[in-house]
Structures are given as structure tokens and as C-alpha cells.
């Protein structure tokens, strides 16, 4: 059988928000672009984003601006964010949202007819552009339709809709290929037929999203298997701060089959309160010192905030996600959880049934159809679920170039640095747009001075042999069983609360599963064979789990999405440290790297009394870099 070959200027792996935005940008720069989707076009996990996209347009509160958004993002990330990414993100998000409107997006409106903005955890002002609670769907559909519009134009101007952009659906990439130390393309297989396919392209943008399927309870779909993280590692790039995983505080807990499915933070933004089995509104007990001046410590003030935000502090239900997740975890552990091991989230007491159905339609639908709960009348049962990985490919902020691999770019959830140790809700959709575009620009710029880099036959042979391998083995284990075993290990030992001994145990167990996974055998043939597909996904998840566990055991403090029972406090010395994971072909190695110092003009945006809570006296005396 002859190998199917394609040649493009830019190959975009991943067709969620970041990938599609990168593809639009590269096409508009005049390049030929291939978009790889692991599933069908338009089904990527971006559709699951509910709450909205954060951008300081100032439509709901005119005091908002990029500086306030920047400050909120840095606080949310406990100052471990790469300042430059947070800065670019805060500055450029409004333009990226408005641009979507020029492509046909229809956001909800304010009375003045502008884009409506809603409250969310950690955001000082109402900032999330939204469409009910299905903002991600609007975003991905808008960009999908933008791609189609560009293809229609190409059909008119160049004779074929696919002359410049082609979408390859249901295709898995198994290797990023390099020649002469630079990216040369990628290799993979069609999920439908199992047939191999080669892409030659001097620039590759990784936009593969997250890693949630590494964990047992997750809001992520089957696609979140860390493919891009693993592809980048194997291509010689590094993963930054993989210990930081966001456990979203509110996933469904019952029935078991939907455990982990997301309950949008908008429920709390719209007034939902959290109570334990004793009926206590427990979040007041969990306001950390660094947030005491911004969050109400009593119910009366918290309730007043919904109508008068200028004279009251915010309800503690709207603390950043890491804080709320840990609080729920503590309540359940202390025996004050619900029957199914969660807590109650109730929006029915504060807003009318009509408004709930209008503002939270898909939540109403989801609970009614899947759990038999009418959220306009009753409380939901919720608990933490693995939702997002802050860690990811170590990139240059301005052009999204993966450090150490010329021609490789990464954007969206798969990239690290933007969110520090914890991501604020709403900052993901805007991240996709801002850095998806920048990755497209970066790739286009790179291609200008780096033309074709042909892939050698020996490289092709090696990639091809890897795909064939699971069918050539016999007597190995079943990939489904190994996947479940990995999920148990990560859930029990690398979860919300961690200790050294458990992490050490996890590292040993992950290595053992990886050794056994080298022998997995799959039933059937190559044609649309989920067992075969999982064999490759498993490989990726194992590298991700190893990176996370090894980074987590080294970080001896608690910060954002990394909580150590044996090191419960936040430590200013550790704030200056990024963990950089690399792969030597056998195992993952983690090293420390200094976090870039906040420049003076950004340092000066903060009240020094606030920065003192995060920084060492030495850092404070320097007052940022010049």
C-alpha cells in the first residue's frame, strides 16, 4: 500500500478554539494549512466551555480595563504565571471577542445593545462575554464557520475550497517528525480506516487541549489524553509546571455515569450558594488571608453584593476555583458531605425559575435529563472534578514557539505559563483566541525564512513501525484495563491533596504501567478500532502522568492546583521556580528554572502590600526588573 502524503506550510494539530484560530491566522497570512481533528470537525472539547470568555471590554462595568484583568489573572495564578502571557492576554482579549462578532457570533446583549458580561470567580468586574451557558459552542461554531467562509472564498478565487485550508477529520497524530534538528512534519493514522498518513510541513502548531482522561473523575471528553503534551515532549520540547492541575469545584457527583461532568461556575456567578449536609454555607470558613479584603465574611454582605457591587465584598462562593475545590474536599472529608459524596449547590433560592432557564439553560437540561433534578426547585449535588491542566508546553509568549524545537508552536490548554498555578474561569476561551492567533502568526513568520524540510525514509519507517506494533504483539494486556489502572493511581495518589509518600508511590506505579503498556495487544483490525486508538492515547497519558507526579513531588509547597498535605503553606521562594519536564527517550526528568521577573511597570500595577504576601523581601526591595 502506498503511503498517503500531504504537503502544507503549516500543520495545526487540534481543531478546538486554539487550533482553528491559529489556522485562520495562518491562512490569512497566505499560507497552506492543514487542520487535524481527532474527532469530527466542530466536536472538540471547546464546545463544553459554558460560562464565557473573559475580556475587559468594560460593557457591564466601565471601570474594567486590561490592567484590572491582568491583576486578577496573576492573583488567580498565585503569581506563578508568565507575566508576559498574562499581559498579552489581558490586552488582546477584547479585540479577539469583537472579531468573533465580525464573523457572525451572537453574544448575549446588555441593555445598550453591547456584548453582555457576567460575573465569575476571581474576576473583579463582570467580564465574561457569554451566550447563555453555551459560550464554547458559540465560539467553536463561529470559528468553524469562519474556516468554511475562507474555504468558500478560496473556491471562488482559486478553484477549490481545499486549495489553502483542508480539514482532516478523525485523524490521530502519533509523531511529530524532525529533520536536521527542525520540525519537518507529522505522522499519524486515519481513525476510520487505520491507514497511515504523512504530513510534511516546516511548521506545526500543537493545539490539542488537555489531559483530563489521565484522571478517574474528569470533566474532559475522551479526547483529553494529553496527546500534544506527549508529542511535544517526544519531539524535544519541555513541559512547564505539570504539577498544576485544576480540579473544578463543581462537577456532577450523581448518578455515577455522569460523575465529573461540569456544572458551570456561572451557577455561582448567577447567585448559587454552596451548603453542606448541615445546611451551613461553609465557604465563609475558607477565605484565605490573601483574599480577605475582597470577599465578604458574612451572609448579609455577600447577599448585598449581587445588587450593590461597589459597596460590598464578593460572596466567597466566587473565590478562585482552587480555593473552592479544596473547601468542598475538606467538607466532604469531615463527614459533612451529601449522600453521594458532594455538597449542595443551590440557585433556586435566589433567582426565579424563568431566569434560571434563560441564563442556565443547558445546566437545567443536563440535571433534568441526566440526574432527574429540577434545578429551579432543588439543589444540585456537586464535587471536584479534574478539569484543566495549567502546565503545558514551555513556549515563547509572543509567538507561541515551543522552546527548544524550531518550527514547533503550541497554544491553548496544551501550552503552559499563561495561568500560573491556577486558571480563572473564563480565561481559557480568551486564551485560545489570543494565543491561537499568535501561534498562527508565529508559524507564518517562521515559514517565511524556513522552507521545506523533507522527511527522510528512515524517519517515516520508524513512525510507521510504531503504529503497526500493537497488532504484531500477542499475549499483552488490554489497553482499557491499563487505562483504568492509571486513572486509579492518579486519582488516589496525584489528586487534589498530595503527599510525598503517595507521589513516590505513584511514580513507581506509573513506571510499572508504562512498562506493561509496551506490550499491550489489541483485538480486531485497524478499521475504526477504539482499542487500537486507546493504545496510543494510553502512551500519551502515561507520559503526562509521569510529568505531573515527578513535578509534584519536587514542589514542596501548596499553591493553586497543587496542594501538599505535608507542605500546606505557600512559599515565596517556590514562587520563583518553574518546573521544566523533559523526556530522554526512557523517562521524564524534571528540573528547576527561574520564573521570569515581573518588569517594573507591571510590578507597579499592584499594591505593594498585596505583593508582599507572595514575594520575598528581596524581590520586594528590587521592585521588579527594568
Amino acid at each position, binding site marked *: 500500500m502506498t503511503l498517503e502524503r500531504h504537503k502544507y506550510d503549516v500543520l495545526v494539530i487540534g481543531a478546538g478554539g486554539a487550533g482553528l484560530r491559529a489556522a485562520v491566522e495562518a491562512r490569512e497570512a497566505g499560507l497552506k494549512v492543514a487542520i487535524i481533528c481527532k474527532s469530527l470537525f466542530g466536536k472538540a472539547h471547546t464546545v463544553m466551555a459554558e460560562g464565557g470568555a473573559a475580556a475587559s471590554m468594560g460593557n457591564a462595568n466601565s471601570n474594567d480595563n486590561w490592567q484590572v484583568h491582568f491583576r486578577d489573572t496573576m492573583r488567580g495564578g498565585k503569581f506563578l504565571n508568565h507575566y508576559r502571557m498574562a499581559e498579552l492576554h489581558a490586552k488582546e482579549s477584547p479585540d479577539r471577542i469583537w*472579531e468573533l462578532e465580525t464573523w457572525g457570533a451572537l453574544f448575549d446583549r446588555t441593555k445598550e445593545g453591547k456584548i453582555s458580561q457576567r460575573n465569575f470567580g476571581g474576576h473583579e468586574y463582570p467580564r465574561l462575554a457569554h451566550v447563555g451557558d453555551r459560550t464554547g*459552542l458559540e465560539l467553536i461554531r463561529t470559528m468553524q464557520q469562519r474556516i468554511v*467562509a475562507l474555504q468558500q472564498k478560496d473556491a471562488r478565487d482559486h478553484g477549490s475550497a481545499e486549495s489553502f485550508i483542508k480539514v482532516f477529520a478523525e485523524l490521530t497524530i502519533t509523531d511529530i517528525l524532525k529533520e536536521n534538528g527542525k520540525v519537518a512534519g507529522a505522522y499519524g493514522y486515519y481513525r476510520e480506516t487505520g491507514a497511515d498518513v504523512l504530513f510534511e510541513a516546516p511548521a506545526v502548531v500543537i493545539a490539542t487541549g488537555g489531559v483530563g482522561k489521565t484522571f478517574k473523575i474528569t470533566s474532559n471528553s475522551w479526547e483529553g489524553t494529553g496527546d500534544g503534551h506527549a508529542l511535544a515532549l517526544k519531539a524535544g520540547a519541555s513541559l512547564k509546571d505539570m504539577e498544576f492541575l485544576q480540579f473544578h469545584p463543581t462537577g456532577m457527583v450523581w448518578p455515577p*455515569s455522569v460523575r465529573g461532568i461540569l456544572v458551570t461556575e456561572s451557577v455561582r456567578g448567577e447567585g448559587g450558594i454552596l451548603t453542606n449536609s448541615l445546611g451551613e454555607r461553609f465557604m465563609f470558613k475558607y477565605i484565605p488571608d490573601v483574599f480577605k479584603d475582597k470577599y465578604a465574611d458574612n451572609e448579609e454582605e455577600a447577599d448585598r453584593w449581587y445588587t450593590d457591587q461597589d459597596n460590598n465584598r464578593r460572596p466567597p462562593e466566587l473565590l478562585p476555583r482552587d480555593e473552592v475545590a479544596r473547601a468542598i474536599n475538606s467538607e466532604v472529608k469531615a463527614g459533612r458531605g451529601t449522600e453521594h459524596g458532594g455538597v449542595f449547590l443551590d440557585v433556586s433560592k435566589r433567582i426565579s425559575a424563568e431566569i434560571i432557564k434563560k441564563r442556565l439553560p443547558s445546566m437545567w437540561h443536563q440535571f433534568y435529563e441526566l440526574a432527574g433534578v429540577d434545578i429551579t426547585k432543588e439543589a444540585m449535588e456537586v464535587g471536584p472534578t479534574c478539569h484543566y491542566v495549567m502546565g503545558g508546553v514551555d513556549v515563547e509568549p509572543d509567538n507561541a514557539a515551543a522552546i527548544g524545537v524550531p518550527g514547533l508552536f503550541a497554544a491553548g490548554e496544551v501550552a503552559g505559563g499563561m495561568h500560573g498555578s491556577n486558571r480563572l474561569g473564563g480565561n481559557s476561551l480568551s486564551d485560545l483566541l489570543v494565543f491561537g492567533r499568535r501561534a498562527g502568526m508565529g508559524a507564518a513568520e517562521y515559514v517565511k525564512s524556513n522552507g521545506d524540510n523533507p522527511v527522510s525514509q528512515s524517519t517515516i519507517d520508524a513512525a510507521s513501525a510504531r503504529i503497526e506494533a500493537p497488532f504484531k504483539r500477542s499475549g499483552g494486556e488490554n489497553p482499557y484495563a491499563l487505562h483504568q489502572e492509571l486513572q486509579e493511581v492518579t486519582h488516589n495518589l496525584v489528586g487534589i491533596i498530595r503527599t510525598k509518600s503517595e507521589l513516590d508511590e505513584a511514580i513507581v506505579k506509573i513506571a510499572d504501567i508504562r512498562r506493561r503498556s509496551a506490550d499491550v495487544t*489489541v*483485538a480486531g483490525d485497524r478499521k475504526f478500532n477504539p482499542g487500537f486508538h486507546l493504545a496510543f492515547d494510553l502512551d500519551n497519558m502515561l507520559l503526562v502522568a509521569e510529568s505531573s507526579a515527578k513535578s509534584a513531588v519536587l514542589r514542596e509547597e501548596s499553591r493553586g492546583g497543587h496542594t501538599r498535605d505535608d507542605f500546606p503553606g505557600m512559599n515565596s521562594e517556590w514562587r520563583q521556580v518553574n518546573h521544566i519536564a523533559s523526556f530522554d527517550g526512557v523517562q521524564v526528568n524534571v528540573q528547576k528554572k527561574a520564573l521570569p521577573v515581573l518588569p517594573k511597570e507591571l510590578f507597579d500595577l499592584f499594591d505593594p502590600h498585596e505583593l508582599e504576601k507572595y514575594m520575598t523581601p528581596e524581590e520586594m526591595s528590587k521592585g521588579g526588573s527594568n
Partner: protein
Amino acid sequence: MARKLKLRIWRGDSTSGGLKDVTVDVNDGEVVLDVIHRVQAEQMGDLAVRWNCKAGKCGSCSMEINGKPRLACMTQCASFGEEETITITPLRAFPVIKDLVTDVSFNYKKAMEIPAYEHPKNLAPGEARMEQIDVERSQEFRKCIECFLCQDVCHVVRDHEENKKSFAGPRFFIRIAELDMHPLDMLKNRKKTAQEEHGLGMCNITKCCTEVCPEHIRITDNAIIPMKERVADQKYDPVRWLGSKIRKREGIL
């Protein structure tokens, strides 16, 4: 809690296939997709099924359950009788690839045929002002998760392969309606082209599409019928016809 559930799952490909009986454990609260996954993990490792979000938001796990087009992730096992055998088959309107997976590329081809949104030339990013009430009409159609159940159930194409060429189907009628009702879209004559180029006239309003829509979009009442009515108005009302020509010449409409 676990009980046994009897399933008949269609297995095969474009050349041949048939229903295979399996018995599988089912727990309280589980949906059909859960038991399909259990079959996959325990009995048929290579059973092909599409799915993504498992929360009714992505529209991937479309299939026919006891002959009815449905999302497997939103179909509760408890909705069937204890002794009932559940028959699971691939979407009938599209060619089978393998087992429960069909080739839905027809829909992506049709999407390419619908002219894109056209933003007003002089309206810069950030300047758009729209009333909530005006965007809501199109927002209803933008809830579409592209599960293509409406395309599958529509009898214009379900058993009439020959109609596919000239019929865009309900999913794309709501796409046209969405653009037609979009407060800012500048492209004219969307209703007319729906009738003349996308096969709107072939629809005889049996509402099957509305019935299967998991997003409860009122495809027939809110998109198809209003477009048909206005097409009819424009076609047969000579005053309106003349008016539209005159205004068009002056560049007003």
C-alpha cells in the same frame, strides 16, 4: 444495584453486517452510551462508536435506539422495561463505516454550500449594537450541536439517496434561517436561495426533525415555516415583488 441488560447491537461495515446479541451489566442512572462502553471494555474491544462529551453538548453519539434517532449519552437505560431488549443501530440515512459509526460527510458538504455570514463593511469590531430580543431568534438556531439526528430522520433523504443532491436538510434550513434573521447579516435573498438552491420546497412539514432535536429547537415552526411563508409572499404578491425590485435598485434593501 447492577442488573443485566439485553442489547442487540448492529456490527459490520459497508459490505455486510447484522445484529449481535449481548448481555451487559447496567447500574442505576446509566445511559445507553455507558453500557456500550462497558461492552467495548469487556466484550468487544473493537466495537466502533463515536462519542465525545457525554453530556449532550457535542452531538457525536448519534445512533438509532429501538429505531429512533437519539443521542446515546442522553438516553437513560431506565427508560426501557426490565425485560426489554434494546436494539442499537447506526444512523440509517448515512453510509455505514463500521458498527455504529456512519459517514456523515454529506452534512459537511452541505455546510460548504450555504453562503457565509456577511458583516456590514463599515461596522468596525466592537461597534455592533443589537437588542437581546433580536439576537434571540438566531440564537435558538445556534444552539444546534450538529448531531445530524434531524438530517437522519428526515424522510426526504432517509430512504431517498437521490434527493440528497438537491436537499440541504433541516440542520441547514436552520442555518439559513439563523443567517436570515441575524440582525447584521448583509447577504440578501437567503430565503429565496433556500427555496431554489437548497431544497426548502421539498420539505412537507411533517415535523419529524423537531421531534428528534435534542436541543428542542423548533426547527419546523420557527425556521422552516416562516421561511416558506415569506418565500410564498414574495413569489406571489406582485406589490411586494415590485417593491423589492425597486428598493434593490436603489441599494436600500
